[in-house]
């Protein structure tokens, strides 16, 4: 029943183009998009921009993997390699993963989940997008004017003495930081005040809780990154000397500042991903989420503890043993809320009716990959083992399992899940599944060897490596090509669906949260009238209509039930 995507659109029937007014066709033209204040359109703008950046960052990743396919020089020299891995990291972190779920998917669905017409500050929302564009432009400027070779972490004093165009990227990252702050600020206010009547805190979908926790981190941590980047710019342009050991400054202070933001930032990346999984698992298992409050509060717990663990990036930097002990202990504390979520997702699947479609496959792969990422984090949190594994490929594999296997897989799963809502079209399930398996298998082939490399002591950020590491590097590179094929396939069938896809019904998956109770795509103001709030995980109220291939509310069939 699901393999209908690429066959001729049978269901076109009444829904001819333009027959129904929605946010996509209510106004047309380039200008109507670039000055739009509609949260859905801003979400789409973000989505397109982020996916473009993802392509760019992915190209750099392939360059890196290709260079590492053999020891010695393969396709580029060390300087070019250093720029390639730096730009891969900087683009993926600042331009792709941090804004991916909150700014693209969150912008699109959050107000609808709340039953609101828009976010609290639509103009600020658009401004946030243009800050993102500004940041991206500065990143591109640096590409043209000599690249960047500091690593995405900008460690001083290297970043103050290298001759590449660091300042441009720093300023770009500063703008991106404010873009992120504006999104977070907007979400907090929206969640506080724009919920529809009767939508209490504990009736919110868990994605909203996750985005709320994320927004807290965005608002509280990002300004510290902002001032750090400003100081580094001042260091480079004015020689202010705060991080320069030759002038009495302390280069390690930079690391403290940087990780004070950047560790919470990994939770900016993973929390919304967990939120998406908390939506996808119950909906596609047709079962009420298990342990709602535990999942909701674990998001907040993660947000709070995430501010107290930054020092675990610096166990070998000469930090005092006491500090190391405290940061190690707190790091383990942050593992608990994540574990709670995983168990709750499992319990949600218990006795469900599990549909293995593309979004669900991504959700399950999230559990698998994030589990690996999280469990390998224990090796890095334990002081004795971290000393060996720190700054090796073990760390590289670990954070790719969490950032890519976690955040990005959830993002792609989320795109598939809300794709019918966003564009009113169904994609091909068959190709969706093929692409998923390519990505999933390719991912593991890429990164499992990197764990082994790390254990053997292969340091990260090496343009070249001793002969004995060759085999594992080659396997890893092959995996990355398989993954790339998967992503290209995804891009092709998704774009294809925009033109040839079957028109999507309002509620193809049987979601109970409010965004599924409006048309696909939604009208400009989201809802005709303020919607009624009820439990977003109560799927018993929805009945599948095989002829329409969608779910509708029981009371619509039989009003006496209402």
């Amino acid at each position, binding site marked *: 029943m699901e393999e209908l995507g690429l066959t001729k659109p049978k269901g076109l029937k009444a829904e001819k183009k333009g027959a129904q007014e929605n946010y996509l066709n209510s106004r047309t033209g380039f200008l109507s998009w670039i000055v739009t204040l509609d949260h859905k359109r801003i979400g789409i703008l973000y989505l397109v921009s982020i996916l473009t950046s993802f392509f760019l960052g992915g190209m750099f990743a392939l360059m890196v993997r290709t260079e590492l396919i053999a020891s010695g020089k393969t396709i580029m020299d060390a300087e070019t390699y250093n720029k390639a891995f730096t730009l891969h990291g900087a683009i993926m972190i600042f331009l792709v993963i941090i804004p991916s779920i909150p700014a693209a998917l969150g912008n699109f669905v959050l107000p609808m989940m709340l039953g609101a017409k828009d976010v609290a500050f639509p103009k600020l929302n658009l401004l946030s997008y243009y800050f993102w564009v500004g940041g991206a432009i500065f990143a591109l400027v640096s590409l043209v004017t000599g690249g960047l070779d500091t690593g995405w972490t900008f460690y001083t*004093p290297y970043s103050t003495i290298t001759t590449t165009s660091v300042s441009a990227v720093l300023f770009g990252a500063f703008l991106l930081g404010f873009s992120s702050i504006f999104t977070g600020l907007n979400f907090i206010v929206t969640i506080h005040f724009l919920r529809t009547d009767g939508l209490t805190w504990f009736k919110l979908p868990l994605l909203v809780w996750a985005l709320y926790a994320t927004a807290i981190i965005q608002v509280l941590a990002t300004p510290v990154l902002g001032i750090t980047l400003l100081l580094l710019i001042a260091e480079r342009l004015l020689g202010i000397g705060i991080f320069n050991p*030759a002038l009495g400054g302390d280069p390690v202070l930079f690391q403290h500042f940087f990780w004070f933001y950047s560790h919470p930032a990994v939770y900016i990346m993973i929390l919304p991903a967990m939120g998406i999984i908390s939506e996808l698992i119950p909906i596609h298992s047709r079962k009420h989420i*298990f342990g709602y409050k535990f999942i909701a509060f674990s998001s907040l717990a993660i947000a709070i503890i995430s501010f107290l663990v930054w020092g675990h990036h610096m166990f070998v930097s000469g930090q005092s043993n006491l500090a190391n002990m405290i940061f190690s202990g707190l790091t383990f504390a942050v593992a608990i809320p994540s574990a709670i979520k995983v168990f709750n997702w499992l319990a949600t699947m218990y*006795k469900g009716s599990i549909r293995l479609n593309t979004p669900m496959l991504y959700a399950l792969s999230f559990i698998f990959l994030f589990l690996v990422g999280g469990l*390998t984090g224990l090796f890095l*949190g*334990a002081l*004795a*083992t971290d000393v060996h594994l720190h700054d090796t490929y073990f760390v590289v594999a670990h954070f790719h399992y969490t950032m890519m296997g976690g955040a990005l897989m959830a993002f792609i799963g989320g795109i598939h899940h809300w794709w019918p809502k966003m564009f009113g079209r169904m994609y091909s399930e068959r190709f969706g599944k093929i692409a998923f398996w390519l990505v999933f298998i390719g991912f593991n082939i890429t990164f499992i060897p990197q764990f082994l490399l790390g254990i053997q002591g292969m340091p990260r950020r090496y*343009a070249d490596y001793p002969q004995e590491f060759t085999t594992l590097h080659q396997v890893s590179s092959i995996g990355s090509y398989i993954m790339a094929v998967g992503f290209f396939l995804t891009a092709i069938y998704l774009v294809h669906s925009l033109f040839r896809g079957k028109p999507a019904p309002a509620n193809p998956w049987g979601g109970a949260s409010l965004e599924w109770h409006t048309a696909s795509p939604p009208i400009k103001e989201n809802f005709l009238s303020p919607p009624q709030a009820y439990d977003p995980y109560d799927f018993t109220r929805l009945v599948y209509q095989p002829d329409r291939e969608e779910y509708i509310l029981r009371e619509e069939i039989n009003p006496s039930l209402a």
Partner: protein
Amino acid sequence: MNFPIAYFTFFGQKFLLYIVEAGRILPPSASATNVDKLFFFILAITGFFFFLIVGLMLIFLILYRHRLGVEAKEAPKHNLPLELTWTVIPLVLVFVIFLAGFKGYMDMAIAPLETYEINVTGQRWNWLFTYPNGYIDKELHVPTNQAVTLVITSEDVIHSLFIPALRLKRDAVPGRYSKLWFKVTVPGEYPIYCAEYCGTGHSTMLTKMVVHEAGEYEKWLEKSSSYILTLSPVEAGKKLFETRGCMQCHSVDGSRKIGPTFKDFFGESVTLRDGKKVIAEENYVRESITEPLAKVVGGFDPVMPTYKGRLKDAEISAIIAYLKSLSKKGRANLELEKAREKEEETKGDSSQTSQEGNATQEKKI
């Protein structure tokens, strides 16, 4: 390790042989063995949970797969005892891991009172090891069964000294000294990497740790320290050039660094900052080492520190010989002057020393 993990450790060692060192060597120190034990202890715990969760996931996928017309069964929405169980058990386990990690770390962090100290300086892109007698080498040589402390710092950017075989790593931070200690029990050669990204040559910042058999280390140190006598002047000069900071600012391949390159430098005419020209011959090079700011080459800043008192005369002569070997004219001279040079050196030695003495006295006044 005080935990009942004998089984896993046993399993660990075998597994270790396979993946960690590709079947070649066991960790050559007690603390590294402890790190491995902890590693496999964590691997056992995480492996258990990984298979538990993925297994349950797969079982649920099969048992509760979607069937047309079959609704999900009724099941509780929450269960406090269950929630608390899977909160508390992981909490206890991670606490155990934390304690084990902390204990292992403290063993590595706290050095015994009596250790053999070697200074380590990271610079782009090599490591310099200064031994207690002042000898500087690009490789780390240590005796077996002797606690060694490395005092690590950096000349430029942050580096990180990484000895995978010992499971040890420590950042080299400019302006700070950090310490690392170990006691190796198995003689042999072990690779050393730079683990903190430091630029173009990061992946070439490799060297090795040579662990000598009992009694051999002292012989090695004595022999190496007298390299100025044992090596040819050109070779000795090259070693000095690489270990005394010359190569940080002067290239030998013609590329421009902070100071002029020494490729085809010796014997050629040089234009100074004030426009005058000099021939870069022995006296000029010697003067430039002891009084670097006297005649600075045009186009470069006067930033070189003096090496007066930091290099002996024999060492300066060796460097001059090395510079000669880098230029066409120098190489020609080298052949001719080989015999004569020794005499000049002994002469210049005495006069130079007295001059130096005068100069320092003047400064004090």
